[in-house]
């Protein structure tokens, strides 16, 4: 009756990892390619079969990221679970507030700055921060904001909001801050 080989079970255990919530694309069909501001003078390698979101990538704007104003929408910083880039339900009201603010302030752009807590390797955290910023961007596009006005960047774990090694500090550092870029005068 004894199972002769438990190795497959052990291997399977390692594979039982919660898959990322996959809510992509549901609202966004038809968004791809409608933005003429492709980077690098229009030369890019977007592929229609790309597994990405279908939203054109965020170009680099004609501004210094360090000049983004994070005060105006400071209340609307989006927080994430450890090692996750999915936007949880309790964060969505803030994104609605961001969307409302944006629509009341035409001409401004938003700078979505993704961050990770300090745990883990710096490179993985840099990619994680980027995916958090992209997830927020995608969500805002779904609320009707123009992709061309939504810039992203990732600071990985190199720009913590709070110092310290507590779970409270970590939770405050796993975030996307919403910066405002005012139009050039």
């Amino acid at each position, binding site marked *: 009756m004894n199972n002769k080989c438990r190795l497959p079970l052990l291997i399977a255990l390692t594979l039982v990892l919660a898959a990322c919530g996959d809510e992509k694309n549901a609202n966004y069909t038809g968004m791809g390619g409608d933005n003429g501001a492709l980077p690098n003078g229009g030369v890019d390698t977007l592929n229609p079969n790309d597994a990405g979101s279908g939203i054109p990538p965020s170009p680099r704007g004609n501004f210094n990221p360090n000049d983004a104003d994070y005060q105006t929408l400071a209340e609307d910083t989006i927080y994430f679970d450890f090692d996750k880039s999915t936007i949880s339900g309790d964060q969505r009201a803030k994104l609605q507030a961001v969307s409302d603010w944006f629509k009341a302030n035409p001409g401004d752009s938003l700078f979505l700055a993704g961050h990770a807590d300090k745990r883990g390797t710096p*490179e993985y955290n840099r990619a994680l921060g980027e995916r958090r910023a992209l997830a927020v961007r995608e969500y805002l596009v779904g609320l009707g904001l123009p992709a061309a006005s939504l810039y992203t960047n*990732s600071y990985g774990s190199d720009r913590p909001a709070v110092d310290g090694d507590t779970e409270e500090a970590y939770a405050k550092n796993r975030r996307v801050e919403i910066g405002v870029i005012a139009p050039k005068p």
Partner: protein
Amino acid sequence: MAARLIFPSLLSLTAKPTVIVKLFSIRLPVLFFAGFSIFLNPQVHGQGVTVEVSTLPRVGVSINGPLGGGATEIVSNDLKRSGMISPVGSGSGDYLATGDASESGVAGRLVNKKTGEDVFNQTFTGKGRLAAHEFADAITQSVTGLPGFASSKLAFVAGSVRTQELYLADMDGYNARPITHDGTISASPDLNHDGTQLAYTSYKSGYPDVYLIDLASGSRTRIAFFPGINTGPSFSPDGSRIALTLSKDGNPEIYTMSTDGGSLTRITRTRGGETSPSWSPTGDQLVYSSDDRGSPQLFISSSSGTTDGSDWDHLVTGNSYCTKPDWSPDGKSIAFTTRIGGQFQIGVFDVASRTAQLITSNGGEDPAWTRDSRHLVYSNDGRLRLLDTVSRESLPIEVSASGCGEPTVSR
């Protein structure tokens, strides 16, 4: 039942036949879930710790000349840090290393005391301490058959969490000096194999871009600045290409490009994020971390650009969080960072047997192989350490900088 099945393979692994010189210290293999074993090895801190060595070849070191005293100390220290040689006084030993050290270099000689014959008689001309390191490496190569790494270059980042600069140092920690003064985030340095060039990530422009530094001239070129993140460069073995992470096509994916910035080739195409590519020694494969299946795992792909995933090879390490792989120069092992019980440790994946082992127990991140494919430089809590993956002995690399991380070693 499971233990019966797993133990024999672990035991056979720990008795690697490839090890030329055996080191004996207490090892207690402990079974860990899903095939991981932990070796509880009393971590060694600080200086002056004697390792139980019974069969290490002993080399007497006695160098004369104007700089003889310093050179003797450097060579002895290097031989000890090789983990494969026991440096002893000049009167005893299986070999005797003598020489003459001056400003112009070290004239070094190694004699096999059993046969009385010269093993080599050679002049080393590296600048300053480098000549003595070169002599030590020649001794290590002759006595053990494995290349010494004392003359390798070490690069790393150091500073506060918000501002990090790039540093270069000798492998024993001496001559540590910053080579950037940008006041921004510098990250993920990678030295090319001969140590002449350094690629890294900098936020100098406000965004993460990849730069190439020619170490002889000091010139710096920005080679990847696509929209999104440009980060985590890794030199191909021949130095002509770098692999890196770009998010220009939607989410972080692995690409390769030539070091002059051209011929971009996409390697991965997933919904997850891919980071930290590292080349196989033959250059035809890349190992990297991907969280496409939930949490980060290690994968190997061809480096030629098959993005349909058909050639993906998932390395089952037995742990759900595996990042920052580094492929050893001999191709046999892949070191990586893993998360166990909330702590970060270093694991090594054996390519032939496809099994993984934890090789630290007191924490560690960002491992980088030295040229002997036996030692790893890594960081732990802002400090750099040197780990002998055979004896599991970990020694500090003391550098005059704090907040150190992401070490890389020339080969």
